[in-house]
């Protein structure tokens, strides 16, 4: 087959000729041009909230890069040695090789501390971005068909990211993360029947043992990243196949995507954003200390630091442990049930399972089997948004509880007062958040309706001949109005007997939930209402 670029040889420079030759070489061996055709001008919609997933993706790449550097200098062995590095307050102290090499990276390798800080700051940002991205997907209903499976994939990514973070910050074997491992050991031991055995398997014997850090290392640099990369690939493939959702707007329908093509605009913006994310992480790592392991000293089961908290994304679990009241344990038939540990574990387990299954729950309640590619404005799904707000508040109460002692010292409170208040808020705050959010959404929907029908207040006051003052309302342009008009509303399910003439329990439950979801609703506007309104 002839090179189709041959006939342009005369009017292009040597650089372009080389590119043409190279492109042909690759294409003849990989069908690359097919991929370019399929993806090269793919359209991606442009909204800042769609970039949260990118922040997560790019911070993950930064983690891979900085992490690889660290693996060349870190040794996970728990063999005890005497420190011979240059940090004076630890000279001659016995510590594990893992801790010693982490100190060497910090104090004796140029750029080592920088890479450590880049790595750890990036990890905090990674999980935060995933969390915020997940909230965006939730509040815009982007988990609806056909994206329910991608929601599950994303949920798995969240869990994997937290696991990677936990295994990672435990690697330096310092006092802070070591106490974290001690707590994990206590939690594992509390499991009925198998707890002590599992603890033994995990730590390779009694706590702390000499096996756990190397095992966490294998998880952290090999197993978990491999699983995460594979899961991430599925996540991206589904994103490309389903195409991205878009907000309602003029020219945007459920059957199209409006935005910029991959080449050149989206690639430039997304590629540029990668450098910006990396740059911001690098800037923070240059100027702000994170995890000063030299202050904590090597892990030892006897000392402990005031203000012992895990990294922020484990905070909700730590907080849940702190909120349990005293004495929750019982013995039955000679076997001990530590309810004070089991209860928070079960509650958190149920919570995250509910989060994972929410798309299927909502699909069942609405009965809507169509594909949805227009992202909802949160106010247009009041019950969903209110449930989300309650969930976020629930998580936030637990998260705040993890810093109960710091709240006490910084706001001149007592830890008893802080914990007591949070125990009450654990029950009350999500309910309050639900009610306030739902009412706010409905009110905003009504406000939008007002604006669509009667225009927005322009600030211009006019005095009529009769003496009254009115404020002139400006009508929206057709394009702006459409943004407020384009949403779906649902109505409660009407209970009907099935084919056999009976009303099943399932139908009743579904109808009840449907009523809860859609009883209060603000219906979309039709053209008649618009015309009536414009006549005034």
């Amino acid at each position, binding site marked *: 087959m002839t090179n189709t670029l041959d006939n342009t040889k005369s009017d292009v420079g040597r650089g372009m000729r080389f590119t043409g030759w190279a492109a042909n070489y690759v294409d003849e061996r990989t069908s690359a041009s097919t991929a370019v055709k399929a993806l090269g001008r793919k359209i991606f919609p442009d909204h800042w909230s769609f970039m949260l997933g990118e922040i997560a993706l790019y911070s993950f790449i930064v983690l891979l890069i900085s992490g690889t550097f660290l693996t060349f200098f870190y040794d996970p062995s728990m063999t005890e040695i005497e420190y011979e590095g*240059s940090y004076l307050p630890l000279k001659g102290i016995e510590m594990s090789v893992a801790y010693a090499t982490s100190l060497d990276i910090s104090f004796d390798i140029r750029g080592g501390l*920088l890479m450590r800080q880049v790595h750890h700051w990036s990890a905090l940002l990674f999980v935060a971005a995933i969390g915020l991205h997940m909230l965006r997907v939730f509040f815009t209903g982007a988990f609806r068909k056909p994206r329910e499976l991608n929601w599950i994939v994303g949920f798995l990514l969240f869990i994997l990211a937290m696991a990677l973070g936990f295994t990672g910050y435990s690697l330096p074997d310092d006092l802070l993360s070591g106490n974290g491992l001690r707590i994990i050991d206590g939690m594992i031991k509390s499991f009925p029947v198998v707890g002590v055995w599992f603890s033994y398997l995990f730590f390779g014997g009694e706590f702390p043992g000499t096996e756990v850090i190397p095992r966490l290392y294998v998880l952290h640099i090999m197993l978990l990243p491999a699983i995460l990369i594979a899961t991430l690939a599925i996540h991206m493939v589904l994103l490309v196949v389903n195409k991205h959702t878009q907000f309602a707007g003029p020219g945007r329908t459920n059957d199209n995507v409006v935005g910029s093509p991959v080449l050149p605009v989206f690639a430039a913006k997304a590629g*540029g954003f990668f450098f910006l994310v990396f740059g911001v992480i690098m800037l923070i790592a240059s100027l702000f200390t994170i995890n000063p392991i030299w202050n904590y000293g090597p892990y030892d089961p006897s000392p402990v630091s005031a203000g012992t908290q895990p990294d922020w994304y484990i905070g909700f679990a730590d907080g849940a442990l702190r909120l349990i009241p005293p004495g929750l344990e019982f013995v039955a038939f000679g076997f*001990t049930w530590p309810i004070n540990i089991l209860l928070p574990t079960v509650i958190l387990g149920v919570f995250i399972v509910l989060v994972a299954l929410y798309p299927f729950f909502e699909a069942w309640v609405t009965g809507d089997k169509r594909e949805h590619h227009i992202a909802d404005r949160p106010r247009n799904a009041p019950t969903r948004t209110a449930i989300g707000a309650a969930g976020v508040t629930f998580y936030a109460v637990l998260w705040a509880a993890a810093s109960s002692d710091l709240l006490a010292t910084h706001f001149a409170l007592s830890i008893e007062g802080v914990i007591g208040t949070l125990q009450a808020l654990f029950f009350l705050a999500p309910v309050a958040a639900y009610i306030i959010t739902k009412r706010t959404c409905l009110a905003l929907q009504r406000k939008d309706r007002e604006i669509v029908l009667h225009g927005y207040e322009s600030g211009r006051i006019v005095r009529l001949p009769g003496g009254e003052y009115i404020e002139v309302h400006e009508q929206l342009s057709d394009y702006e109005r459409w943004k407020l008009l384009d949403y779906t509303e649902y109505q409660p399910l009407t209970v009907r007997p099935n084919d056999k003439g009976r009303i099943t329990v399932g139908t009743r439950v579904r109808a009840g939930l449907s009523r809860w979801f859609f009883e209060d609703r603000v219906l979309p506007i039709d053209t008649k209402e618009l015309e009536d309104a414009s006549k005034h």
Partner: protein
Amino acid sequence: MAQKPPGTDVVTGANQEERDPGTAVMVADSPVNPGLPPEHLRITDLDPKEEKKAERRIAMFFALSIFGSLFAATSYIIFPIIPGDMQSVRLNNMFVGLGASVGLLGVGIGAVHWAKSLMHGHELVEERHPTSGTEEERATAVEMFSQANRESGFTRRSLVRNTLIGALIATPIPAVVLFRDLAPAEDPTVVIKKTMWAAGTRLAQDPSGIPIKASQVTIGSAFQVIPEGLAELEYHRLEEKAKAAVILMRLPINELNESPERESWSYQGIVAYSKICTHVGCPVALYEQQTHHLLCPCHQSQFDVANQCEVIFGPAARALPQLPITIDAEGYLIAQSDFTEPVGPSFWERER
């Protein structure tokens, strides 16, 4: 394309039927989508001088990036680490980092600015297709599986199929079993109930291992204690410490409420308790000498030393185990025996 009203412009399924909208409200006579708004021209589209300025600005950012990266590489050399000099570490960290930041941010800002101000600014439209395949494709897929089924006899040959499934389930079982030796062979439920403390073991200071005399422990003192001999252990030092760590305090005798069985466990107001929190195992080391409360810093469990370390606040469920102590002939504090219950967090076999 832009004419369908909201809620009804469903993406049709491959079988060309409209998917069930469930309880969605189908609004009759809805307003129509006005279509794409008119193109918005930027200054750089209209004014060639602005275009040139934007070009120079973008190039400047890229040039700044080059400077930053080179500065980072140079800083690596001109800000070396002098062993023991923390300021040199700080400067190296900061300048290499700042250089790299400028290097990265320069590229990012330049690229984004280029995209925003110079690249073609129109929005483009791409059609969506139903996610499921076309009728033809689905039929072909079904036919492929049917054919494979006919050719292999998978559904027909039930004996073959069922034994295959059984074999596939059984194959991973050895892999699971292989992980038993992640832990040593001993019974952990026996090992974790015993500590290094025994009758006659002297109480020693952490970390030196020097034994403590009763006369050293004055009222209001808190000593961090390990068994004598632990500091010199070559193997399993931390594992033994994780069970044997003790906190030693002295209270005025009249403030100590002891049950009759435990009156002999203290010595003249000196009491010793396990330091391993009964919640999840952190060291309970915060001793308030005036209130005689012990506070665990991890989850804020509080124990009252005057009342046999019963739990007075926080998520712990059990009092801290007490180490029975007395003095030996030379006045050193010694344990009378090991703890009378397992130390640390609760577990299933604790009471057995």
